[in-house]
């Protein structure tokens, strides 16, 4: 069972279809599967529903798929950094479904975990609750949210072995582990592709069962908001 593909293009072959739902990891540009997203753009696939916390920025991440109008609908929690998004949305060319970030991450986890729906306090009594079931548990208001499963999940990890076991690094972990579980097909791009045995079994974030295809990526990681302090003079 070979999971390793030579590049992003070949890893996407046979799994890309117009109108499909695609999850993409990342919080802003941090931990985003940039190499796979570029290949998805180049595949020419259309009418995608994309599930991702943000919509990338102009010229990077899912912003690339907005330029080419390959996205029909976004499910996201925050899309503030993207002018193209605003334009297409205001022109009625793009649908958006906002999910509170915790609800979105839990919906993805639920989808991967065989949980059809769950009750959360988040959003009870707000517009988000409209059309959703409300229910009181222990005197508090909860609303029902459903699990999300995607046709394809694209994730970015720090290290991965040829079995598909993945390890993430620092805050680049974010949405990647849940999305890996919620894709009917999950493709991982990893910065370091290693042999089985090189990762400690206690320290694997995503077991290989969740990853069907894996590629090595050498793409540069970009910083979205560079904030620093000055070094003190010695």
């Amino acid at each position, binding site marked *: 069972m070979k999971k390793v593909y030579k590049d992003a293009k070949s890893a996407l072959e046979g799994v890309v279809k117009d109108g499909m739902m695609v999850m993409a990891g990342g*919080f802003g540009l941090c931990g985003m599967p940039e190499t796979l997203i570029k290949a998805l753009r180049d595949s020419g696939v259309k009418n995608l529903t994309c599930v991702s916390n943000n919509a990338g920025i102009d010229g990077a991440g899912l912003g690339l798929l907005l330029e080419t109008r390959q996205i029909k609908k976004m499910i996201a929690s925050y899309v503030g950094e993207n002018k193209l998004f605003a334009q297409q949305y*205001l022109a009625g060319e793009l649908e958006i479904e906002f999910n*509170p970030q*915790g609800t979105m991450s839990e919906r993805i986890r639920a989808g991967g975990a065989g949980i059809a729906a769950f009750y959360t306090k988040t959003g009870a009594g707000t517009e988000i609750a409209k059309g959703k079931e409300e229910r009181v548990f222990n005197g508090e208001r909860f609303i029902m949210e459903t699990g999300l499963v995607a046709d394809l999940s694209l994730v970015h990890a720090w290290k991965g072995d040829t079995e598909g076991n993945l390890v993430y*690094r620092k805050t680049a972990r*974010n949405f990647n582990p849940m999305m890996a579980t919620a894709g009917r097909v999950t493709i991982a791009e990893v910065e370091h592709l290693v042999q089985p045995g090189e990762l400690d079994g206690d320290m694997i974030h995503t077991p290989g069962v969740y990853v069907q295809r894996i590629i090595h990526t050498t793409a540069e*990681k970009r*910083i979205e908001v560079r904030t620093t302090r000055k070094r003190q003079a010695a």
Partner: protein
Amino acid sequence: MPWTRDQMAERAAKELRDGFYVNLGIGIPTLVSNYIPDGMSVQLQSENGMLGFGPFPYEGDEDPDLINAGKQTVTELKTTSYFSSADSFAMIRGGHIDMAFLGAMQVAQNGDLANWMIPGKMVKGMGGAMDLVAGVKKVCVIMEHVAKSKDGKEEAKLLQKCSLPLTGANVVDMVITDLGVFNIDKKGSGGMTLIELAPGVTLDEIKSKTEASFKVDAKVKQAA
């Protein structure tokens, strides 16, 4: 004289207790980290999946894999742990974070909060705000007492009822503005109570700038 942004943050920091786990929103709330008393252990949670973060990195030390919820580069501490977004919001929604400080457009006297959208304007999304206000043990809003429009007109932000779409219903425990501090009995019927005035601010001034009904704590009356 009303409090400055830094003085509001300093006042907010007085709500911290040793051992607290705290989430700070963007804007004035971020400044609260500058006023954590020496020797007090307070761990800052960042909802993108990090518990215990430090100041901005020195120039040249930025790490693209190490950012806060505002997507700014930050640093880690010896106590830092990382986790997924689902685990992060499990922590938030499950009531394990002691306190959240955040900004607001409007707060109502029953604890309703509006800070994520203005109908008719481009909507950016609520991010993690709805989860934070629903899940964190104590929610403290830090904001200017009134909104000033370009023509200098002032509009109340502490209201009988929010006119903007809510971020959360009955979620705010405390409001710190440039003029004073209010407690809100968000789950009970106690309403809103003014517990502190900024130095030199009068009860009349704060009443004139507040649309919400509020009680005045005995200590404030004495001082006034």
